[in-house]
């Protein structure tokens, strides 16, 4: 448990530095730190697939970000922000955060099951470390775990979910990447307009 708190605090500190530092390059490097912290976190949360993907995506994402910031003459931020606007946003965001803390509070599974026995109602999220399908009996994940191998033949259940049960999502996801890349090449092309006379 302590490891999760440590890593999450590490990520939060890195995020604060990334947000507040004046040097864009250090901000980008801090984003890398958040990403690697997240990747370790995924590993400890027993999600090796995500950890691998996160770490490699992080490397490429960093290369893309560094491409954007490096060799620019302005890697330092100059000029102050409007003080009033900042304070207002901080206050609003803090209020939403307090609301979020209330909303994200958890209860042990047994207690939730007890409450739900007398009357079917949603209580809160179950405690960290217990899955939703312990509380929600109709959840699909139970079937994925117990019958995924038999139904799809894939030993890696995450692969069986993304490429068989929910393959349609993955088609969408591949398309998102395709769209983004076509979009990036379109945005980065040298010449965007031509004279109409050329076309005739």
């Amino acid at each position: 448990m302590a490891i999760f708190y440590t890593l999450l605090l590490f990520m939060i500190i890195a995020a604060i530095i990334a947000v507040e530092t004046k040097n864009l390059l250090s901000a980008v490097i801090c984003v890398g730190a958040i990403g690697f912290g997240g990747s370790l976190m995924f590993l400890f949360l027993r999600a090796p697939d995500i950890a691998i993907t996160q770490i490699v995506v992080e490397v490429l994402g960093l290369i893309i970000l560094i491409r954007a910031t490096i060799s620019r003459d302005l890697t330092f931020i100059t000029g102050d922000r409007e003080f009033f606007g900042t304070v207002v946003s901080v206050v609003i965001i803090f209020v939403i955060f307090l609301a979020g803390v209330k909303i994200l509070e958890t209860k042990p599974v047994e207690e939730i099951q007890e409450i739900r026995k007398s009357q079917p109602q949603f209580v809160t999220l179950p405690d960290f470390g217990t899955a939703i399908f312990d509380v929600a009996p109709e959840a699909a994940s139970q079937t994925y775990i117990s019958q995924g191998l038999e139904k799809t033949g894939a030993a890696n259940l995450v692969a069986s979910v993304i490429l068989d049960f929910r393959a349609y999502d993955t088609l969408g996801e591949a398309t998102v990447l395709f769209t983004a890349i076509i979009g990036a090449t379109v945005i980065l092309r040298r010449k965007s307009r031509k004279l109409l006379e050329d076309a005739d």
Partner: protein
Amino acid sequence: MLYALCFLLFMIGLYCAVVKKNMVKIVIGIMVMEYAVNLFLIMLGYRAGGEAPIIDKGHLESANEFAKFVSSSVDPLPQALVLTAIVISLGSLALMISICIRTYEKYGTFDITEIRRLKG
């Protein structure tokens, strides 16, 4: 409490994306928000002392072993969702950065207060 910390991370990202005036900072804010949501989803699926949702030879040796796996494996569904979300965020990062670079070329600055051709 872990969920709340995760939400704090989300809020830091939101703050950065809303308040900051530098284009790269805004992109960083959006990335931080994405990390927070991904982390939140994975944490939802975690089971204390659980195993990764990958079946190996040991699990198939006997029905007992397999039952033990079923009762301790973490939830594979959020992991599949996060895999999708990570790739989506990578795609939007690439697009966003290319827009930033082109804007920098045109205006010579990353500061959105100086880029004010369009009246809000």
